[in-house]
């Protein structure tokens, strides 16, 4: 026997996502604005599923060039060597810099892949109206929301290295097209996480009772 809960949507309340004020939704009104801060109110984020799907799929596509194209090229004494994300990690391992290799592996490979997989799973679970472990799925959502920013490390390292290593014929470092694609993946998955509405996870439970 499950406990029956009241939800704001069920009782006709709208929560303002900007200032957290709860308002009673008036009937027959098409657009409602928050009486306190003026933000347009929605019971659920508008077109949450289709927007999140679109952004997630875009991120999947961009993820391919992000990994295949070089993110930067180190030229030392005239010899240039393009580095992809993965070869960068491999070089750190070969150089014996294990902690650094693990950090970059986690930030540049684990986090984006995990984020894309979690978003896909959440989208599918909502689409198929799964009522399995909603609390844990909400926690998964919170993780994707907070951890995504750390993928930016590699981009920042490139920004620092290109400006610092400008030694003419001795050594130069140039950014690569892979970095643009990777930056795109990070930004687009952040937008994808923002457009996903975790309340949709819980809506499946609601329909069970009715």
């Amino acid at each position, binding site marked *: 026997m499950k406990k029956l809960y009241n939800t704001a949507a069920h009782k006709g309340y709208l929560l303002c996502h900007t200032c957290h004020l709860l308002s009673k939704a008036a009937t027959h009104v098409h657009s409602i604005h928050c009486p306190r*801060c003026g933000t347009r109110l929605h019971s659920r984020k508008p077109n949450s599923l289709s927007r999140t799907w679109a952004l997630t799929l875009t991120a999947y596509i961009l993820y391919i060039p992000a990994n295949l194209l070089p993110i930067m090229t180190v030229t030392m004494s005239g010899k240039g060597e393009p580095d992809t994300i993965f070869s960068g990690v491999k070089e750190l391992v070969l150089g014996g810099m294990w902690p650094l290799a693990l950090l970059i592996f986690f930030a540049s490979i684990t986090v984006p892949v995990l984020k894309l997989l979690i978003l896909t799973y959440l989208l599918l679970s909502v689409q198929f109206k799964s009522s399995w472990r909603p609390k844990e799925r909400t926690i998964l959502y919170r993780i994707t929301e907070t951890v995504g920013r750390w993928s930016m490390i590699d981009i920042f*390292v490139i920004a620092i290295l290109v400006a610092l290593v400008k030694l003419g014929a001795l050594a130069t470092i140039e950014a690569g097209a892979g970095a643009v694609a990777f930056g795109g993946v990070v*930004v687009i998955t952040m937008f994808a996480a923002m457009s996903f509405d975790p309340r949709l996870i819980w809506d499946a439970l609601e329909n069970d009772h009715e």
Partner: protein
Amino acid sequence: MSQMIKAQAESRTHLTACHDCDLLFHIPHLKKGEQAHCPRCGALVMERKGNSLDYSLALALTSLILFVMANFNVLLRMNVGGRTQEENIISGVNELFVQGYWEIAVLVFIVSILAPLLKILCLFYVLIPLRLNTRFPYAKEVFSFYETLSPWSMTEVYMLGILVALVKLADLATINVGIALYSFAALIPFMAATDASLDDHEIWESLEPTD
């Protein structure tokens, strides 16, 4: 008597909805330092921090000073065979532009310089008038913008990037650390403390028109 107190306490509860699972429930009146979590999904719904505006303003002012120092000084200096190369945050952005990667240049500029700076300035715009018992026009919009900016301000991630770059270059050359790096390292806990000191529910309540 005890029933009266109980009734009084109940009248001070108010209805709210969870932003993560949409559960409708009553939260009691919170005392300073108390938190309210959603009974269904566990989300942190409200926290009464009870810090004074002066406290947040002091932290924001410290952050601003450190931000300026971090951006107008040398971050890293590299010595190789008698040649010295200096860099700071903006020169990294500039070099990406020069190399033709304007997309990453814009991205790095926004998340490491523009967003943190705007965040601090937005706070001043909202908090200083509140401290003086007044409100500037568009204070609500500015505070809402401050909250939107939060995920895009990535100073702590940039700091980790600096450390990675330092380790990577350690074999190649002698790297000297500039004042900007220390300022930047200090900026991170101060910005985090500024954000943590703010009670957004309380600020929204004080921005509400009372007239």
